[in-house]
């Protein structure tokens, strides 16, 4: 087992190198560079900037160097100094920007995940056990609607309703007065209030999908002989279901936990933009559009690391569950 883990960890190194090169090239692939996009943005607002200033910026950011030189400066600083460079767009260190947003991103994504499971598992179990009942039809109908409606559209609809009914814009994660205030109980409550809509929106499609998966998985298990045996032995119906078939049906969830790691960071970018959430998704999109190379590069690198680690975790979980995998 240890041998297997070490082998897998060693595999990660060339994967990461390849990812870093591809990511850096991809970010640079669109025409122009950060300075071009800056000039374009300024021009679109009617501001103008002279070519000398642009040339100076290009020199300052090292954008006049060949791409492999730029790549080496970037990656060597990360590897040898742990320095992700400065964001061109915001003119602050990339790590400051990322850490400030990662916390909230995790809080939001984790809350949404917990909410998803809390709602989806009981509903899924119910609709499997009471197959073709009115409740099952309602749950099925709602989950198909949830699957079909894009998150961001739901967000827009909720925003529209809030604006029309209450005259407020439900964007952001804090009220204005708490935005830069130190942490306090009031600020926490404020955050909790602001989390309600994003969590519902983010969880909606997840809930819908999970309800369907749980229902299908459980239906596979419900009619197996061990269930009949347990029932014959006189176990109460709900205890029986919770103890045996539900546990078996949960296996596929466990093995997909690893995939949710990168999802926590990059998930729901469009929703976050619509709801103006200070999470990493909009930052990444903005960095890619503005060709803010170091910021975008750091984020893609981080997503890749999380994906690789996530895959490792699910492989390890599978290996632990299924001894046959270990020896391949």
């Amino acid at each position, binding site marked *: 087992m240890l041998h297997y883990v070490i082998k897998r960890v060693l595999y990660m190194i060339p994967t990461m190198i390849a990812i870093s090169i591809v990511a850096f090239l991809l970010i640079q692939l669109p025409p122009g560079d950060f300075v071009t996009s800056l000039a374009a943005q300024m021009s679109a607002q009617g501001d103008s900037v*002279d070519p000398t200033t642009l040339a100076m910026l290009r020199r300052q950011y090292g954008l006049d160097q060949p791409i492999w030189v730029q790549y080496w400066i970037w990656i060597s600083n990360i590897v040898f100094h742990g320095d992700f460079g400065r964001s061109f767009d*915001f003119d602050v260190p990339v790590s400051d920007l990322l850490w400030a947003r990662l916390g909230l991103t995790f809080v939001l994504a984790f809350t949404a995940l917990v909410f998803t499971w809390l709602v989806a598992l009981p509903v899924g179990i119910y609709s499997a056990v009471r197959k073709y009942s009115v409740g099952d039809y309602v749950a099925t109908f709602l989950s198909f609607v949830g699957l079909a409606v894009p998150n961001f559209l739901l967000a827009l609809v909720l925003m529209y309703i809030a604006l029309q009914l209450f005259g407020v814009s439900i964007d952001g994660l804090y009220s204005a007065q708490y935005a830069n205030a130190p942490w306090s109980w009031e600020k926490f409550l404020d955050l909790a209030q602001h989390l309600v809509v994003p969590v519902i929106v983010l969880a909606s499609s997840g809930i819908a999908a999970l309800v369907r998966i749980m229902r299908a998985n459980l239906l596979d298990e419900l009619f197996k002989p061990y269930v009949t045996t347990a029932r014959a032995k006189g176990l109460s119906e709900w205890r029986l279901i919770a103890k045996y078939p539900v546990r078996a049906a949960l296996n596929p969830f466990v093995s997909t936990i690893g995939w949710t790691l990168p999802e926590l960071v990059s998930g729901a970018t469009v929703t976050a933009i619509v709801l103006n959430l200070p999470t990493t998704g909009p930052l990444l999109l903005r960095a890619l559009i503005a060709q803010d190379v170091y910021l975008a590069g750091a984020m893609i690198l981080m997503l890749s690391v999380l994906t690789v680690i996530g895959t490792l975790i699910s492989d390890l979980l599978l290996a632990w569950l299924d001894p046959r995998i270990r020896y391949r």
Partner: protein
Amino acid sequence: MKPVLGARLRACVLASVASFICTMAASAGESPMLEALVSSGDLPPLAERIPASPLVVTPVDRVGDYGGNWHSALMGGSDDGWILRTLSYENLMRWSPDWTEVIPNIAESVEVNDDATEFTFKLREGMRWSDGAPFTADDIRFWYEDLFRNPQFTPSAQEPFINTDGSPVAFEMIDEVTFKFTFANPKGLFLQYLATARPLDNAAVRYPRHYLEQFHPDYSDDIDAEISAAGQADWVGLLTSKANFWANPDVPTINPWVFTTGYGSGDASRANAERNPYYWKVDTEGNQLPYIDTRTFDILSDPQVLVTKTLAGEIDFQDRSLATPANRPVLFEGRERGGYEFFEQTPASPNYMIMMFNLNHRDPVLEELFQNKDFRIGLSHGMDRQEILDVVWIGQGEVAQTSVMPGSVYYNEQLAKQYTEYDVDLANEYLDKVLPERGGDGMRLRPDGQPLAISFAYSAAVPIFGDALELVAAQWEKIGIRMVPTPLDRTLIQTRQDAGELEGVAWERGGGAGQEVVLDPRWWFPSNNDSYYWAPAWTAWFLDVNPETAQVQPEEPPEAARRQMELYGELQASPDPEEQVRLMNEILDIAAEEFWTMGVAWQANGYGVKKTNFLNVPASMPASWIYPTPAPTNPEQYFIEAQ
């Protein structure tokens, strides 16, 4: 809360000679936010914080109330134009609110000698940086000697601080409050340049010596640690980022508001600023400005969020990224619910849509075709401008070419109205001189016999150009010209523009009214970065760009353009305003004769959004970058009416 006129006022009525000054000093009010600090001893009294002769700003409607927070928004991380326009328009000189003259701002007065070579500025005695340190001519000297003349910080000197031959201006500090710029030749536009928002033009007053010396190698031995701690490559990067007042709240400024949460700090979702206790402007009753205590800038990634926030009544005053023609109906409908109203912005753009051909295209066949004036005249006659105006801009505006708007001393009838009548026969007559051959489908062929299809680029972010160009394409098809409107990402247009690869391109903004005509002559001759759209190689020649680093190679322009460039040089050197107008009109005459670009129609008025209780905003103001809307209307005297 109204500033209280205290009992001190009554004690003052005695001395009649000094009564004016006395009234000023005695009635002087300040924000309650600062009064508390003064009474607790954390801040010196007002009289010690403001200069002996502060700049007196006349409020637009009335003396305002102190307090409140001005909430607006920025898009992404590089949107500092909005900060420049509303928070930091503090130059040596400034535009009068009606944009007719240049008036002293930081400078208390300026003296210019008769041939406009010597400019002697007198600063305000007792003026202070936002940390209380004196603002003196020595700060200007720090900029001049240690930054502007430092070859690392300023590799090559730029307008407006250069002589005609490109050498830097001479500087002399006469005493604590007096300094002089001396040019080798007359510099007629110098004061006007000093009134714009362009970063180079206000550089002289952006660098507090007492704070920045610690980041300069000439004054500080050990800055390597600072450089690496800040993640910068050299001291230039370090000093530039330390001097950046919207990112670094520690740097003292002379702006009405100083940042407490920098733009880009924390999770980069919001920036905050609060009033500068040492601000050096007062209203007509001697109350220290600004009226508004704090500023909040939401940092958004999507302009639609800004629309929602405005509809919900969260935005106090904004035009940037918000007041687009497309948003107008929805914002208009939501006025009452959102508690806001519109104010008018008069356009400074010379047209709704300026249609340009790349006169320096890489393909010699296309280059020759685009440079042929008959070709452009033919196409111009082949456009039914009234139809386009009616359909796309619902008839709001007036059919015209790319030209100075009426009412200006630079208005040029020929430039405005030539070739605007829709006449298919006339169009064909002109085009037959240039492209007589037609293919089997009736469409004209290039001179080398290849089919002609002009790709006309426009920014995908401005879909209204697409609507207009589709109509133009249909109209041109009737005269045998195939044109393909091509939506491109704005960055891609910029890239192709820099490389001189565009064929046709549609854009607007700049140079159509007020002093913009002179200071931003991008459409009248190949003059600045924005002229790269239609004449990249000639512009590069005029700007004297380095051929080794430039993407487009400089090329000597034809006789007419060279003459315009000469005239512009004379204009820049002329000390006499009337002579400047005459020279500019001569440049515009040549522009009319050459017909560089074509247009559709003059713009109707634009708008901005402000809350109904956000007062002292003029009912109308020009929309311009040279004017930096709304800065010359004095945002420091805007106020939020106490409810």
